[in-house]
């Protein structure tokens, strides 16, 4: 019970009694002492009163505890009423997460001259990163349920240099449609193929397969609507339809067609299930149809002039994909294996206009027809907790590209060097280390034969780290 004394001391100190610089008369000192004594008494009384109240409260609490036992049964009843409401993410703020990545690149060929020969350039960001150290695009994700009916997601990628922020995905999605229907609207990664829907941080290699680069411009993100239906079967079956503007390759690199209605359409279907107690699989088929208008690409012609060519016509892409995941007893913590492959086949029929800006041999238009394909197959094995190793093989088949202007003799094949019949290949190996679910450091080596007559040996060392809310992962 030394609190009153402490209090008295504090009061005394506050009054400046300890300060000898003040000349204090006896009478004043007496008065002060009397004041302090009375304060002390008063505080002691107050503390006694408080202690009494505390005792009473403790007794009451004891009774309350007994009552609480009985109340618990009622509370469970009340909780049942409230239980249909899920736990909110960050109270009512959207869940926010951030993905940081950075890469060191050692490339035997100049990345500024990167091209994939045999295929129409997509004008997308398909090349390897710059040589040396560079910060990758940082990804910022906001997501939350809007109300019982909708969920909203915004994923922005912030470019480290001057390009600013770009909306990768920004969409709303229905939550409570019955019978297995979901509708997504806004900008979203198209359901064509398998890897296209996954964000780069979830990829098993540092870059996209060559097939995704030439057929989807690295990645197809469409402004549009997606309808998806899951069948009421134990085997997983879904079918979906996407209608979009055709804002990016293969629809068009210049923001899509100036057209009411839809500029591109995608149909997809998946089927998937389990095998035994350790394996899960999924297979998919998808079809993308669009009619590009004035889809431009640059290519140096036979005079060495960099001319702009333009394609008008139809573009149809088929994709098949398959995924197999294995983990002993479905417990992937220590060891697991993932096999993944996709096959793409594209037909384009239309007209190609050479040198639209009349910079070289003059603007000319002729028929264009191409049948091309490409595929990749990759396997990633986690051989011990935290460590994985993987191998990927890429192959593109330039197939046939018929140019009316060349057939008629108006121009030579050398005026369209990038459309030469060349089959690019690439071997990639990687090893990564993930100290936790949220961090990964990866070393990758690729022998890339995308360029006719030139092999690029690429060494990439990268980190990918995510912080903030934990989103749901895709299969």
């Amino acid at each position, binding site marked *: 019970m030394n609190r009153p004394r402490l209090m008295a001391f504090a009061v005394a100190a506050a009054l400046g009694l300890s300060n000898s610089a003040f000349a204090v008369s006896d009478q004043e000192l007496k008065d002060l002492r009397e004041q302090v004594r009375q304060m002390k008494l008063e505080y002691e009384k107050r503390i006694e009163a408080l202690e009494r109240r505390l005792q009473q409260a403790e007794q009451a609490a004891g009774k309350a505890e007994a009552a609480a036992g009985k109340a618990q049964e009622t509370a*469970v009843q009340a909780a049942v009423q409230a239980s249909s409401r899920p736990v909110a993410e960050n109270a009512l703020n959207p869940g926010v997460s951030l993905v940081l990545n950075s890469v060191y690149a050692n490339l035997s060929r100049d990345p500024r001259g990167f091209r994939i020969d045999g295929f129409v350039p997509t004008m997308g960001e398909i090349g390897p990163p710059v040589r040396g150290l560079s910060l990758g695009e940082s990804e910022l994700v906001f997501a939350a349920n809007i109300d019982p009916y909708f969920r909203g997601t915004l994923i922005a990628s912030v470019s480290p240099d001057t390009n600013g922020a770009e909306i990768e995905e920004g969409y709303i999605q229905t939550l409570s449609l019955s019978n*297995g229907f979901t509708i997504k609207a806004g900008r979203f990664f198209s359901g064509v193929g398998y890897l296209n829907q996954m964000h780069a941080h979830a990829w098993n290699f540092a870059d996209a397969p060559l097939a995704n680069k030439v057929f989807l411009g690295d990645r197809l993100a469409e402004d549009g609507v997606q309808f998806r239906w899951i*069948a009421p079967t134990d085997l997983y079956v879904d079918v979906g339809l996407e209608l979009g503007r055709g804002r990016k390759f293969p629809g068009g690199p210049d923001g899509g067609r100036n057209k009411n209605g839809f500029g591109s359409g995608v*149909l997809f279907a998946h089927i998937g299930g389990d095998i035994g107690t350790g394996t899960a699989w999924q297979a998919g088929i998808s*079809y993308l149809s669009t009619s590009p208008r004035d889809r431009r690409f640059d290519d140096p012609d036979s005079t060495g002039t960099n001319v702009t060519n333009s394609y008008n016509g139809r573009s149809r892409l088929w994709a098949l994909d398959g995924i197999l995941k294995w983990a002993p007893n*479905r*417990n992937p913590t220590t060891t697991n294996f993932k096999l993944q492959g996709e096959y793409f086949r594209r037909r384009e029929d239309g007209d190609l206009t050479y040198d639209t800006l009349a910079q070289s041999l003059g603007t000319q238009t002729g028929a264009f027809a191409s049948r091309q394909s490409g595929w990749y197959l990759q396997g990633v094995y986690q051989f011990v*907790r935290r460590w994985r190793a993987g191998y990927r093989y890429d192959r593109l088949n330039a197939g046939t590209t018929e140019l009316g202007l060349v057939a008629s003799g108006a121009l030579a094949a050398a005026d369209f060097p990038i459309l030469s019949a060349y089959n690019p290949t690439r071997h990639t190996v990687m090893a990564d280390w993930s100290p936790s679910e949220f961090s990964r450091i990866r070393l990758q080596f690729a022998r890339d034969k995308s360029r006719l007559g030139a092999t690029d040996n690429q060494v990439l060392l990268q980190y990918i780290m995510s*912080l903030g809310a934990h989103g*749901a992962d895709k299969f």
Partner: protein
Amino acid sequence: MKTIIKLLLVLAFSMLSWPVSAALRVFACEPEWAALAQELAGDRVSVYSATTAMQDADRIEARPSLIARVRSADLLICTGSQMEIGWIQPGSPGYFEASRFVAKLEVPSVVDRSLGDIHPAGNPHIHTDPRNIAKVAEALTQRLAQIDPENADAYRARGKSFLERWRSAIEKWERQAAPLKGMPIVEHHRAFVYLVAWLGLKEVGTLEPIPGIPPTPSHLAGLVEAMRRQPAKAIVYSTYNDPKAAAFLSERTKIPAVMLPYSVGGTDKAKDLYGFFDDLIGRLLGVVK
């Protein structure tokens, strides 16, 4: 193109498995809730357990068959408290979050990932205390009665009888486990915190340096040292843990390593909820005797 779509539709419809009986379709995120639903509803429900006791409940990966099962489920029973955050979106209709009905332990005052894989809403491994099972059983009985009102009385009767049997089983387990009171143990992951609290065990360390981070040599060396000063009676790990770390510590300290079923189905004896607790206590008593 059209023929392929037709083919797919035919394929899809041919695989429709129309429910033969009018049984309620229950999707349980974890095997303990599958077992509880079976106890409470018998053959009025067809129960599917998404995971097994052999899987690390904190690291479940989504897979196509789970999406298919969730889609046609009438009731989703999950632990909640962000345990299933990587693969289940809470808020779907019919979602029942078991951990809402129990008082959670280890609710962190500071939430930061540098502290490991922590759950902001508290430790989610609530099912290792049978009193929690009773609380969830009461709530689940009411939910069953709510979504299947025709059989409401049957669920209530069955729920009542289960709770009576369960409470006497709890008394039996508490009697059996009396010698375990105050027993110091080392856990692999804090997966049995509720069991520890219920039986009055004393957890004196974990093999994981911090939650979700695998045991490191330096941390294990520290544990060996700590065990020399104040030995524990058992090193406890669960069905899905890699047993190497527990074996390492056991070998150096001569403290027995005990594998405990994480949930129903984790061991041969843990066939149902009763067998699960029988086996948990039996295996711990095996160390004391």
